[in-house]
């Protein structure tokens, strides 16, 4: 699901970089506010844990196995802001050190897995953990993975990566199987962790409003479905690929890209200033 560079066309990756950069700045600020000193190394070590836990195979049926992806698990254990920050750190390291996902596509990958994936992993848990805990954790894992995968697929389609109708359904079915597996693995992992020490899996903070969580989840699912529908509609693809692929328009694309980066830098700069001001205040 890590999109490498060269797949997304300029408008798509530039937009997602511009969206993700301030979002990550905001998430970092929230995580900093909610995190006590002794939890700072914990965030890093939990990132390393997710990396390592992905090496452990879960046998599912004869001859097949899956592994934990971890977005939902992090959201349940650390809370949404810290989890999104840890996922962003993991994705940045994967893009640079492990050649897993592109550097320009980092904004897209952070958006899919770090922001939307973690939100889709946290919201079901927030909504249903009081009454139906196991179902809530299962839904967290499954929705988290499904959201990331569908968003990535939609972005690839918008960028003009061709996918015939049958293939589209086949990959959606594959995502669904993976999502169910992630749900089951997340439930198993959370209950194993809880057996060792129940304090490691805190409930969501009671301060956050439940209605708001419901609305947020509905909005998120609408965005995911909307992205898929919009990207699968042929005229949308044609319009966008025409803007990206026409050889006469490359200067415009280049300028678009440069402006995108300039906007990212400006936003990072503003975000940094804001954080600095808050901290000194």
């Amino acid at each position, binding site marked *: 699901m890590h999109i490498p560079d*060269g797949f997304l066309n300029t408008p798509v990756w530039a937009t997602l970089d511009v969206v993700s950069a301030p979002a990550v700045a905001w998430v970092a600020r929230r995580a900093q506010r909610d995190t006590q000193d002794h939890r700072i190394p914990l965030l890093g070590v939990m990132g390393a844990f997710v990396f390592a836990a992905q090496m452990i195979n879960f046998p599912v049926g004869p001859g097949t196995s899956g592994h934990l992806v971890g977005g939902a698990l992090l959201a349940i254990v650390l809370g949404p802001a810290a989890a999104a920050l840890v996922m962003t750190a993991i994705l940045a390291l994967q893009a640079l050190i492990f050649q897993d996902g592109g550097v320009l596509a980092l904004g897209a990958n952070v958006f899919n897995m770090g922001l939307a994936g973690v939100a889709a992993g946290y919201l079901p848990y927030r909504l249903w953990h009081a009454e139906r805990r196991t179902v809530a954790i299962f839904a967290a894992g499954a929705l988290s993975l499904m959201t990331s995968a569908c968003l990535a697929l939609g972005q690839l389609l918008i960028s003009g990566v061709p996918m015939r109708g049958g*293939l589209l359904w086949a990959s959606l079915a594959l995502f669904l199987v993976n999502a169910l597996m992630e749900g089951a693995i997340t439930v198993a992992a959370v209950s194993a962790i809880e057996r060792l020490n129940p304090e490691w899996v805190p409930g969501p903070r009671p301060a956050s409003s439940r209605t708001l969580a419901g609305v947020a989840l509905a909005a998120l699912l609408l965005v995911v479905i909307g992205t898929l529908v919009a990207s699968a509609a042929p005229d949308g693809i044609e319009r966008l690929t025409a803007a990206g692929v026409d050889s006469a328009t490359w200067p415009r694309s280049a300028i678009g*890209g440069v402006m995108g980066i300039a906007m990212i830098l400006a936003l990072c700069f503003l975000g940094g200033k804001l954080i600095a001001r808050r901290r000194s205040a």
Partner: protein
Amino acid sequence: MHHLVIDRWSRGTSPLHQCDPRAKLAALLVFLIALSTTLPPAQGAFAAYAILLLLAAKLAHLPLRGLARRAALVLPFTATFALLTWWSGDSLRALALIEKSFLSGLAALLLVSTTPLTGWTAALESWHAPRMLILVIQFVYRYLFVIAEQAQRMRWAALCRGRGSFRLAAGLVGVLFARSWQRADGVYHSMLARGFRGRFVPSPLAPFHAIDALFLFACLAGCLAIRILL
């Protein structure tokens, strides 16, 4: 393990290693943007980008074969989509997908094999990336291999004891989680023992020299020339 290779490479002393991390990171972005906006039929341009990267690798005294092997990690994913694209009749685009993702991977690899982690995180920090994110990146990288090796040992031990099952794997994840949690506690206490007072000092960066500006300018000129001429 692989990580040792990049770590070892990144501590070289070539001119490219000594270049300012900010200049290298900016040059990487310039290169990636130029590459990303190059459109499929331009085979000459892709060859020119490859030559640019080869020159940089030579300048950094890095082993070309090792670099290419690591950059090829992107190929399985890319090849799947390239095959789909080729199958739907757009062979030029299929080829471009492979070229672009391979060259992008190679470029990012060149950055991290000439710049230690603290170098490029300091560059990001000087561009006002959130401090908290930088800290988490550094902590993840520092403990990644420790915990991955622990996971590997636990997996082997479990396999030795018998056939794996779903419950067993969940148990392994649970124990790995517990050990990571305890390790984080230990890390915090040793930070306290070394005088940590709840504040992190930003990593120092050497001043930006004229030669760094020259390097960035050369990269910019090279990429622009390729974009305009080819």
